[in-house]
């Protein structure tokens, strides 16, 4: 096994990995290496051919491939090393990596590591839909890869379960490519995707959105022939008398994303069960010194611009760590309180920091309140809150003060 030493290794060459590597290099890190298992850089953006990326950072609506290309160009011009078709198969807490590719197995020693492995889609097994096992059941992102990259149509009449953004985007894509989408089915009482996507992907094409509904059966022999949907009660249990059959040859699942943290677990990094990602501090450093996390492997984001911003922070701090210039400060825990699903980072210092969180349910005219014991540290009024839209707030030094432990709630 050959051995190689780099200053900063970035695992994953999607939007998070690209931005982290570029930021690390700009911060003055020595050798920066991106390890990507696919044959090209860009990650999931390559198949996200729709527009709307970059509104935050570039103030223009780019398509996924265009957004990725800007960062690929930057990574190339900064002289960052790239290993494609290469899979990291081991990571330990001493920041040693084992990488497998067609040249063999390689050991890579590092001064700092950035985790940027992204996330993967939940499957039918994960949500336990009963019924037979015919062909024609795809995850929405998988279908997107077939249609947009491989030029393979997945079906003619397609029901979509789950109204997350990928499900909505695929509903429009399928209709544009000549398929019929009789329904998008959502178990929650609200749409899981961004408002813009609900309007421009479903309403524009008169695609029905069945809220408070789920798929309770799949029928078919060789191929899907129909699905049975039913309304659910307030405990999300299907109501039998509301069952109805929808004929279709395909079912797409857009039922959630799981941060891909197998390597993090292997290295013994502490994970947050609410986000499915690593527990991090204000530098986005995990519980293992010198290992940082960003993008969807840290927490599933709704907008790529924020993945980029995360990643730039993680990359910059990884570079500083590699040069022994990162100062670790005492940690103040931030705990999600009433109505808040999660908070990232889970630990902060007394320095100004950006905090993101998701609420449990939609609401209007709400307040996000940070408290240190009984003392109110910060209150932010929001006209509208919704679980699909991540909330990002800045805590200033004077607001944090000498807090011991912060909690955040929606009121």
């Amino acid at each position, binding site marked *: 096994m050959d051995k190689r030493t780099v200053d900063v290794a970035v695992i994953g060459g999607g939007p998070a990995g690209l931005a982290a590597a570029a930021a690390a290099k700009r911060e003055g890190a020595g050798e920066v290496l991106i390890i990507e298992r696919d044959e090209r850089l860009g990650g999931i953006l*390559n198949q996200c*051919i*729709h*527009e709307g990326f970059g509104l935050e950072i570039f103030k223009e*609506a780019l*398509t*996924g*491939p*265009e957004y990725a*290309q800007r960062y690929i160009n930057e990574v190339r011009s900064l002289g960052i090393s790239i290993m494609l078709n290469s899979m990291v198969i081991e990571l330990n807490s001493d920041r040693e990596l084992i990488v497998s590719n067609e040249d063999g197995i390689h050991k890579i020693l590092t001064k700092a590591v950035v985790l940027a492995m992204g996330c993967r889609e939940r499957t039918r097994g994960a949500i336990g839909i009963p019924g037979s096992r015919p062909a024609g059941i795809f995850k929405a992102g998988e279908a997107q890869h077939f*249609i*947009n*990259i*491989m*030029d393979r149509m997945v079906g003619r009449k397609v029901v979509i379960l789950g109204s997350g953004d990928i499900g909505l985007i695929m509903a429009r894509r399928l209709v*544009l*490519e000549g398929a019929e989408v009789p329904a998008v089915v959502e178990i929650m009482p609200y749409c899981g995707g*961004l*408002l*813009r996507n*609900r*309007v*421009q992907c479903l*309403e*524009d094409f008169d695609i029905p959105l069945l809220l408070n509904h789920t798929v309770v059966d799949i029928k078919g022999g060789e191929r899907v022939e129909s699905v049975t949907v039913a309304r659910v009660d307030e405990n999300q249990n299907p109501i039998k008398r509301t069952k109805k059959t929808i004929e279709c040859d395909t079912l797409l699942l857009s039922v959630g994303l799981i941060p891909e943290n197998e390597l993090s677990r292997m290295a013994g990094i502490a994970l947050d069960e609410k986000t499915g990602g690593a527990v991090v501090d204000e530098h986005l450093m995990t519980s293992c010194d010198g290992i940082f996390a960003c993008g969807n492997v840290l927490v599933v984001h709704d907008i790529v611009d924020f993945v980029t911003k995360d990643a730039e922070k993680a990359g910059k701090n990884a570079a500083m760590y590699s040069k022994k210039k990162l100062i670790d400060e005492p940690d103040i825990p931030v705990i999600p309180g009433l109505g808040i699903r999660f908070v990232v980072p889970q630990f902060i210092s007394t320095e100004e920091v950006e905090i993101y969180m998701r609420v449990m349910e939609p609401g*209007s005219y709400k307040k996000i309140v940070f408290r240190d014991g009984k003392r109110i540290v910060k209150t932010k009024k929001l*006209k*509208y809150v*919704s679980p699909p*839209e991540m909330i990002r707030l800045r805590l200033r030094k004077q607001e944090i003060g000498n807090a011991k432990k912060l909690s955040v709630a929606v009121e």
Partner: protein
Amino acid sequence: MRKNVTCIVCPLGCRIRIVHSKDAIQRIEDYQCEKGKDYAVQEIFNPVRTLTTTMMVRNGQLPLVSVKTSKPVPKDRIFDIMDTIAGLELEAPLAIGEILVEDILGLNANIVATKHVKRI
């Protein structure tokens, strides 16, 4: 005529109610800001969208190139554009930003590549 428009200017998502004739707004209600009002009026008289899709490529590393209209086009012409470009096949290599079809259907917008496709 009556129409409801879901505003996408901000996440509030107002359901704006409009009563209109062929070329004038008679009544507009339930909007909360001027931007939202403007959006709703545009949606009634001239709704436009940027179309993003793919086109077939010969001799490329990928069988498809992702494309977009260079500017928003009338919503009701989207399927006409899809039908027109479905029959076209391009020759690799293609570069991001390259104009693939000029002035599609006379709509004053080009079809532009949104990714590089190398030749094999």
